[in-house]
């Protein structure tokens, strides 16, 4: 089975630990080369974040375990890229039409 090279997750987590600590911990996972955590929405006690992990061989279970250990929960897996090269999403006519509309 091919490796996961990019993973985009929608995560709901408590305000503490901060996204700085969470990003550092995710980057420490073996197979993860880089991490991007962006704040999407903030509440009084929780925040929604978009987590993007890139690497040679990302183990989803390990990424999920770190998120759960930090009190977060994966709401959805928004994007997964696998294979020997990362393929970017190609815009189609439908996408262009919806953008124009």
């Amino acid at each position, binding site marked *: 089975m091919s490796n996961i090279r990019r993973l985009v997750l929608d995560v709901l987590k408590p305000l503490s630990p901060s996204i700085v600590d969470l990003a550092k911990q995710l980057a420490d996972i073996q197979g993860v080369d880089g991490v991007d955590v962006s704040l999407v929405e903030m509440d009084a006690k929780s925040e929604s974040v978009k987590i993007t992990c890139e690497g040679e061989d990302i183990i989803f279970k390990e990424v999920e375990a770190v998120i759960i250990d930090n*009190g977060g929960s994966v709401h959805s897996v928004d994007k997964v890229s696998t294979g020997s090269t990362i393929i970017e999403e190609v815009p189609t006519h439908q996408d262009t039409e919806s953008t124009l509309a």
Partner: protein
Amino acid sequence: MNFLYKFTEKLKEYREISKVDEIARRCFAKNGFDGSLTILGFLIGFYLANVKNPIVIFTTGISTCIAMGISGLWGAYLTERSERISSIRELEKATISDLSNTKIESAHKFAMIVVAIVDAVAPFVTALFSLIPFQFTKYLDIRTCYYISFALTFTALFMLGVFLGRISKENLFISGMKMVIAGIVSILISVLLLKNF
């Protein structure tokens, strides 16, 4: 060395998550103050009753210290535990997830223990500090021991005030004196009430 580094990093992380520093500081100042004032009242009582046996003063004082320590340990642990459990439940509702066996739960458990220890140690240490002179009754007159003990209690109160002043970044002397005044008020009320007995 690596283990020590990992351990200190974990403690740092737990402190940040549970925000225990602020609570522990507050507990230290409040219970240290309680310890000092309790032992001051206890010493004034013995002084006015003209108790001259150092063994009686010291053993009763130590028992009081232990009782204050145990009271702090139990009381703080149980109250902090219920507060923390309630806060975890609220956080679970907010994040729609189970926080059992997570770093968050461990951090809150760590905070319960730290607060309980600080609550126990602070009154014990400040009260014990005031009793030190009664260990030197072989070399000192009992009245001198009382006076040194009062001086040590006021020093402890002043230092607690300085500690609070450093936190609030206010004038350290004024902050220390505010605590000392509490001790003076305590002595005055005791003397006024007990002088007719």
